[in-house]
């Protein structure tokens, strides 16, 4: 063999506490000491002269051997502290720490390699690498958190500035009033004026402080809902009542579209009203005089979806996410001295979340109006459940009329019954003209809604018979048809109907019409 003779008689070489071997530049192992052979489970003759050093490496390490080990040996003549797995005869991988020196001799170059088993060290290094990985991940998380805190801090600073300003606003009128009253103490008209101003400003101040307290109670988890089954229509009606004054003042129109069936929410009546009142107030506040505000409710995928839309200032897309954060009012309200801290939406979000709902906003951009959408879980309650009764009772006191519906479309008839119930009336229905006649005679209602296209006698014929009967002169009769031509209206009037409605029915208009017709 062309390899330099190893110090075979040297026990120190053979039994050294580290693996020692020599290899030619082609990688073939010349000599290996006993320690190295034992560690890897080979006999000398299985390694020496027949096995290449690289053959003892797994594929990945063999690649590394080619791309790093060899070039380094060739360029700097030595290599230190390289950690590679070597494969034991039985297939186990043994992590080793390797040093190598390339020596120039008469037979050419020889590589002398020293190896130490580094199982523990490798395990430890693996732990360190993993720990560093975890630390890097944690650090990235920490950085994101710090950024968020910094932003939050900035918003809080801005908020305090706004808060100071808002709290000071009512103070100027206070001072003015006091000064005027001091100058003209005997003027009764001025006293009345001053009283109004102070009351208004005090209201504003109280409102501001209440909002603040409420948001802080929500963020601290101290706000407890007084939950009960409540009707969405009740909630929306109270919210509209509360929100109407500023809408009227600004000559804005409010259009509502609610489903004809009762929708029950498990929630806190006051807080739910607050949610929609806040959104309606906001819509008014950020919409120019004469603008339009819409309130719709529907059921989507088993959840209640209420949308409040406006034709106002709109929201730039980059702010859509943030507007529900506390202290993030985008711009001053358009008109009137309403002021605002930008906590209204934070309050809305907090309250909606407490109810297990969500609130989102969308807008085509600045000046394009915006839509706020509140989604709340729908409770499917039995029709005779307590809240439904409560609703009916409440409306009974206001204005209850008895209504009969005659329609061969059962669904249409029944939903109309529900809708009228919701509107505070008590309704019954029949599905044919003749059955309708009997019901009318028996029930003697205030009002009847009659479909024209009935299977036995049509609506016109039915009305003629009702008007001919002694009990039927005073019933308010309303035709409900799929046709809205002038000719249809005339035919209805001629037959004896008091009014004519085209499907689908606008329930608000129907409600108003019934009220008016009955008053006559």
């Amino acid at each position: 063999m062309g390899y330099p003779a190893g110090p075979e008689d040297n026990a120190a070489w053979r039994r050294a506490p580290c693996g020692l071997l020599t290899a030619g530049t082609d990688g073939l192992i010349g000599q290996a000491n006993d320690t190295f052979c034992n560690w890897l489970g080979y006999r000398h003759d299985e390694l020496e002269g027949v096995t290449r050093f690289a053959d003892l490496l797994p594929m990945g390490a063999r690649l590394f051997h080619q791309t790093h080990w060899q070039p380094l040996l060739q360029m700097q003549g030595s290599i230190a502290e390289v950690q590679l797995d070597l494969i034991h005869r039985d297939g186990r991988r043994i992590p080793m720490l390797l040093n190598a020196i390339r020596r120039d001799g008469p037979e050419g170059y020889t590589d002398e390699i020293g190896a130490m088993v580094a199982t523990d060290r490798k395990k430890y290094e693996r732990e360190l690498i993993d720990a560093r990985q975890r630390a890097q991940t944690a650090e990235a998380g920490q950085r994101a958190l710090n950024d968020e805190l910094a932003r939050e801090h900035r918003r809080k600073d801005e908020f305090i500035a706004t808060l100071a300003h808002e709290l000071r606003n009512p103070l100027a009128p206070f001072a003015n009033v006091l000064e005027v009253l001091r100058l003209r103490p005997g003027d009764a008209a001025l006293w009345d004026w001053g009283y109004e101003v102070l009351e208004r400003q005090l209201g504003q101040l109280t409102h501001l402080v209440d909002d603040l307290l409420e948001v802080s109670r929500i963020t601290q988890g101290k706000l407890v809902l007084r939950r009960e089954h409540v009707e969405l229509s009740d909630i929306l009606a109270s919210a509209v009542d509360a929100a109407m004054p500023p809408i009227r003042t600004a000559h804005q129109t409010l259009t509502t579209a609610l489903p004809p069936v009762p929708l029950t929410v498990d929630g806190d009546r006051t807080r739910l009203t607050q949610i929609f009142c806040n959104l309606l107030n906001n819509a008014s506040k950020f919409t120019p005089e004469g603008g339009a505000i819409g309130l719709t409710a529907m059921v989507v995928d088993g959840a209640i979806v209420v949308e409040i839309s406006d034709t106002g200032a709109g929201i730039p897309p980059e702010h859509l996410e943030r507007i529900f954060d506390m202290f993030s009012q985008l711009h001053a309200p358009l008109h009137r001295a309403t002021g605002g801290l930008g906590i209204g939406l934070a309050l809305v979000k907090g309250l909606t979340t407490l109810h297990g709902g969500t609130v989102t906003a969308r807008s085509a951009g600045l000046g394009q109006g915006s839509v706020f959408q509140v989604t709340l879980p729908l409770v499917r309650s039995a029709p005779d459940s307590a809240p439904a009764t409560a609703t009916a009772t409440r409306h009974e006191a206001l204005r209850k009329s008895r209504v009969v519906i005659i329609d061969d479309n059962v669904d249409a008839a029944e939903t109309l019954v529900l809708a009228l119930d919701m509107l505070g009336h008590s309704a019954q229905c029949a599905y044919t003209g003749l059955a309708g006649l009997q019901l009318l005679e028996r029930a003697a209602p205030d009002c009847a809604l009659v479909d024209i296209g009935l299977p036995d006698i049509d609506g016109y014929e039915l009305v003629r018979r009702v008007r001919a009967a002694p009990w039927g002169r005073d019933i308010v009769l309303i035709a409900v048809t799929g046709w809205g031509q002038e000719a249809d209206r005339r035919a209805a009037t001629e037959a004896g109907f008091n009014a004519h409605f085209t499907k689908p029915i606008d329930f608000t208009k129907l409600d108003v019409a019934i009220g008016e017709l009955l008053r006559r």
Partner: protein
Amino acid sequence: MTLQRKHNINILGEGPPIVFLHGFGCDQNMWRFVVPAFARNHTVILYDLVGSGNSELAAYDHGKYGTLHGHADDLLDIVRSVATAPVTVVGHSVSSMISLLATNKAPDLFKAQVMVGPSACYIDDADYRGGFSRADIEELLETMESNYLGWSAAVAPQIMGAPDQPALREELTNSFCRTDPEIAKHFARVTFLSDHRADLRFCRLPTLILQCTDDFVAPVEVGQYIHRAIPGSEYVLIDNTGHCPHLSAPDASVAAIRRFVQRG
């Protein structure tokens, strides 16, 4: 940042321009046994791929260098700014594919190319034998993770912060293969997962393939595949064990390259 700083460009000698590109693992020092032979009658251009050697590590943009095209564009920048005549490009290993991409993009800038130990695709694919599986490459990445050669946190800042003390760098063990571990891993991934077989047939430049008889990284059949795929290419087999004939068989390498260059 100047192009010179970015790539640690070194220019030696005078004559027709010839640029040498190092492969994966080390840096332009790998050409040390070959360069003197050419510097006598050529303008030899050496540089470090961004992310290797003494290149500007800050310029390593993971997006740009997410494919070999990033390095190919760098080669074009350098040739355009440094050379005044069409250049012969000698690329080792992965750099033979970098030079292929560059010469395909702008053939007018080049005179000829030499591919030392090239592979167009390292991973076996159906009938194609690249020699490796994806798992092998993952294992290489892991091996590199345990061997941050000369790059412990303790020395790295010193190296980077002391450009006026070149001696410091040379004292470091394994310094020729030293680089930022994260970059090295990324470059390894880009290199060994690349597949440029489809680019070979567009090559119209006189091309020499320098193949080693016993090369674990780029086996003979891989070199032959490239030879068949590049129209009119020449193929020279060098008797050598290993992937770096320019280090372990510099004389044979120089002779083969010189024969090819002088004839062109």
